[in-house]
């Protein structure tokens, strides 16, 4: 369990980080909760590790223009415990609190999690339901992508070589929105066999907004627009919810592994979607 040797650097600015990351086979290090296990197994063997911990400006959580702007280095524990996140975007706090364990949440970061793009990671369900934006930066400039364009496939993102995730933005939740993240835990790792995030807003006794994000089911987390369409305009009765949840896995190429067969995963997705929707609808009042 000894990784290949590497050079280690702690740049003090983004500009310096970009310069170091431009060198061949350099890799960014955030919390290390995905990268270090891979290095120990020698599945990753970077020549240079660029630890971002001293780069300023990447670890703040700000509310600005109706959005919460979350720095890439904000840890899972900070998201779970931040009064601002708990009141303005409770879905993300709820998802963060269910990741791994205390030790992992103390170190692991939201930027590292989305950059790693594990298909069973927890955040993507919520980030899809929130229609989150991911801000990327490299030496040449910045760009912002919707979460659905950023996460491309299993362990694959839109990041270019030398590019970093710098910020993730989610909308401040409007009053009267109910949210819930429901996860079927793979007990050995803590990851989601299936995880479903739901947001529901009601108006005049009808569902005005429904958003559903799913992780763990397939190679790529996704937003379940078909479920949302069945709910918007409906009263949100138990019948409406089970009818909508029933279609969540339609047409999805489900993962199949020793923890859950494809059929069982699809079943879990329907059950956890119904649970997340019911809990969100209850909180929406």
């Amino acid at each position, binding site marked *: *369990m000894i990784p290949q*040797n590497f050079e*280690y650097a702690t740049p003090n600015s983004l500009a310096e980080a970009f310069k170091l990351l431009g060198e061949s086979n350099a890799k960014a290090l955030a919390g*290390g909760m995905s990268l270090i296990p891979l290095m120990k197994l020698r599945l990753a063997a970077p020549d240079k590790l660029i630890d971002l911990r001293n780069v300023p400006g990447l670890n703040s959580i700000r509310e600005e223009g109706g959005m919460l702007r979350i720095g890439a280095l904000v840890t899972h524990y900070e998201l779970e415990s931040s009064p601002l996140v708990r009141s303005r975007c409770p879905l993300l706090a709820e998802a963060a609190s269910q990741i791994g364990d205390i030790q992992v949440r103390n170190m692991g970061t939201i930027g590292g999690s989305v950059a790693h793009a594990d298909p069973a990671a927890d955040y993507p369900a919520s980030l899809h339901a929130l229609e989150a934006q991911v801000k990327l930066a490299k030496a040449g400039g910045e760009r912002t992508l919707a979460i659905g364009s950023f996460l491309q496939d299993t362990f694959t993102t839109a990041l270019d070589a030398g590019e970093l995730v710098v910020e993730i933005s989610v909308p401040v939740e409007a009053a009267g929105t109910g949210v819930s993240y429901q996860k079927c835990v793979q007990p050995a790792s803590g990851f989601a066999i299936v995880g479903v995030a739901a947001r529901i807003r009601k108006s005049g006794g009808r569902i005005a907004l429904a958003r559903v994000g799913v992780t763990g089911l397939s190679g790529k987390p996704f937003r379940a627009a078909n479920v949302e369409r069945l709910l918007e305009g409906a009263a949100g009765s138990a019948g409406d919810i089970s009818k909508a949840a029933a279609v969540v896995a339609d047409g999805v190429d489900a993962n199949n592994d020793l923890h859950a067969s494809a059929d069982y995963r699809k079943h879990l997705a329907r059950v956890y979607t119904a649970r997340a929707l019911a809990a969100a609808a209850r909180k929406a009042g």
Partner: protein
Amino acid sequence: MNITVTINGTRHTHQVEPRLLLIHYLREVLGLTGPHIGCETSLCGACTVAVDGKAVKSCTMFAVQCDGREVLTIEGLASNGNLDPIQLAFWEEHGLQCGFCTPGMIMTTKQLLERNPSPSETEIRHGLDGNLCRCTGYQHIVNAVKAAAAKMGA
């Protein structure tokens, strides 16, 4: 690479390879064998120590990441020969059998109680999710955490 780390209150400077894991630095360079290596794969929590007050799995961190920081291991808990209240509670409530998981359990419990001084049983079990015990069946560990919370609140 040269690193300076404050460990259990004492500053140490060493020349280390960047790939040296914190657990190996503590055990092999400093002779602090309290933090244990259980799984070496980030799952068991036996290697848990606090870095700048945050519980971490020291098998999943490089020693160089601790440059300029403070590390607290199980060896740093007792003061003047008096056990810390959490250590005492594990002893009194039989929160251990073989003791292999205990240093990690205690370091994680310390973090849990700092953040939530009177946790419910569910919160204790959720809080110790990252620490495995092969002996006790956990019930006495949960009792020990409750007893520690009571001692510290008193």
